[in-house]
């Protein structure tokens, strides 16, 4: 089953990415040396506001059609480092203060080769006040978060991030090593007061190969293999579902709030675009006073 995000309109030719990858201006992931071209700027850096806006309009139309998106600083906020330390692991925080109105949130990294990074649909078991994700950023880009309210309206917020090469950066020393333990999961629960949401972290072992990482010998790209669906339920009730894409960093980690009062164990099912399927259960600790 193709990911719901794998909309062909949104997938920019790898060629463009290959070109932008030649003009990187930031540290390369995991290198002993930070290579910094003296004169070359990231391609995205020279785009002007008008081009960025046009790009966003194009993406917007392909995801949301003609539906109106309103700007908002009260319904959605997106936080990310202005300049990423590691383009293959850029922490993103989405804050949705009017959480009772929130049905879901879309994350779009405009200048990534496949911009539609994630869609999260919250279920009754979630506290959607805040979500954290780790993404790859391939170019200087706007990051858009679009929140969908329960009454079907859309609101957006934007953050500009300077990073490059996150999609094509090799993730480890070998594909084999990167695949080790694929499908393992871990869940952590922060201490919380009774009646308060529980801050929860789900970690999934998965290389999330972007399809843009090249093997030196074969000159082939390691085929894209990424988690395209995460479903988290508690006691049969949905907490959230996440549709993901190659922009999610390897070993995906998501932080989210668990609504208080839920019962039963948490069940997580993950699947990837190559028919990988994994399930794990976790027990939520009782709140401490």
């Amino acid at each position, binding site marked *: 089953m193709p990911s719901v995000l794998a909309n062909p309109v949104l997938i920019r030719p790898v060629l463009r990415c290959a070109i932008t990858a030649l003009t990187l201006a930031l540290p390369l992931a995991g290198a002993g040396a930070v290579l910094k071209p*003296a004169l070359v700027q990231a391609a995205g850096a020279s785009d002007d506001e008008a081009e960025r806006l046009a790009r966003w309009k194009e993406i917007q139309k392909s995801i949301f059609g003609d539906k109106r998106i309103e700007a908002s600083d009260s319904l959605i906020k997106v936080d990310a480092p202005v300049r990423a330390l590691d383009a293959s692991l850029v922490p993103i925080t989405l804050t949705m203060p009017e959480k009772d109105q929130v049905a879901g949130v879309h994350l779009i990294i405009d200048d990534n080769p496949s911009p539609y990074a994630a869609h999260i649909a919250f279920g009754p078991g979630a506290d959607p006040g805040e979500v954290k994700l780790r993404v790859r950023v391939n170019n200087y880009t706007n990051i858009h978060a679009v929140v969908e309210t329960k009454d079907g309206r859309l609101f957006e917020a934007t953050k500009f991030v300077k990073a490059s090469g996150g999609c094509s950066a090799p993730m480890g020393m070998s594909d084999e090593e990167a695949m080790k333990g694929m499908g393992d999961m871990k869940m952590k629960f922060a201490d919380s007061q009774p009646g308060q949401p529980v801050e929860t972290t789900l970690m999934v072992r998965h290389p999330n190969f972007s399809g843009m990482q090249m093997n030196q010998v074969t000159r082939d790209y390691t085929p894209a293999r990424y988690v395209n669906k995460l479903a988290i339920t508690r006691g049969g009730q949905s907490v959230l579902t996440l549709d993901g894409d190659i922009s999610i960093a390897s070993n995906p980690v998501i932080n989210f709030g668990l609504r208080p009062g839920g019962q039963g164990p948490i069940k997580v099912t993950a699947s990837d675009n190559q028919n990988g399927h994994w399930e794990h259960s976790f027990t939520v600790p009782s709140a401490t006073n």
Partner: protein
Amino acid sequence: MPVDTTRSRSQATRRGALFGGLCLCCLPTLGRSAEGFALNEVGPGIFIRRGSDTEASRENDDAIANIGFIVGERSVMVTESGGSAADGAWLRGEIRRRTDKPISHVVLTHVHPDHCFGAAAFAEDKPVYVGHHALRAALDARGNYYRTRLVEILGADRAGSVVYPTLEVKESTEIDLGGRTLRFTAHGAAHTNCDLSMRDSASGILFPADLLFVTRIPSLDGSLVGWLKEAEVLRAMDAVKAVPGHGPTLVDFAPAMDDLTRYLTTLRDETRRAIAADMPIEKAVRTVGQAERDRWVLFETYNGRNVTQAFKELEWE
């Protein structure tokens, strides 16, 4: 031995390291090519060029690692190949100015470009390229990417290319240059997953390569827990002097390794505490290791990335 004596600058170098984190020794060579560097004779027949504590740039030909050679009775071993074809070619020229003995071995200490992209400059010598058994796979995964970046900076003709090891060290091996033997150790994942160290029998000097950073902030690309373990393996060798991968060309091994492990231990302990306290990674990169700020050159550039690496490793503990 037909060698020139080059005045040792290691004392000046070490003083430089102490001045507010600024590497004074490198300042005169900034903006100049690799030809501006000199070789220090750090032991009998051992010549090392100090890499600059800077980023790879068009001006420095990625000559940022400590590279050099060891002269035996029969042949010459290149300890590190250089950061680019240009850097490797410079080193080869320096060797040829000093000795006519064949260059029999070129050591590729690990996958990072500042250490192995000079290798192709020695192709005509047909040396044995010595590397860790995991180096080939690491070059497969990373080599093309590094090459692309280097070409952007230096241009295709100066960048260098990927050269694979022809002698893969599984655990340990010895290479005899005549009158001196180099004993190699293939380490577990530490700085990278393919770190190779060696010890010279004639001088007792240890070559830990990037398992030992001095002055320049260590960069973590393998395993933090593993690096601290391999530091013990190196300590157990009881070397008095060492040629670090970065920093002065010769140092007292024990205090230099103490400095390195202090940084790594701080990184490990503070990252573990951050994870235990549910601190998000974006906050951890700003807070972990800050006490080390003034002790290393390029702290600002690398510390946050080291914390990211450490966090990714330790959050699965």
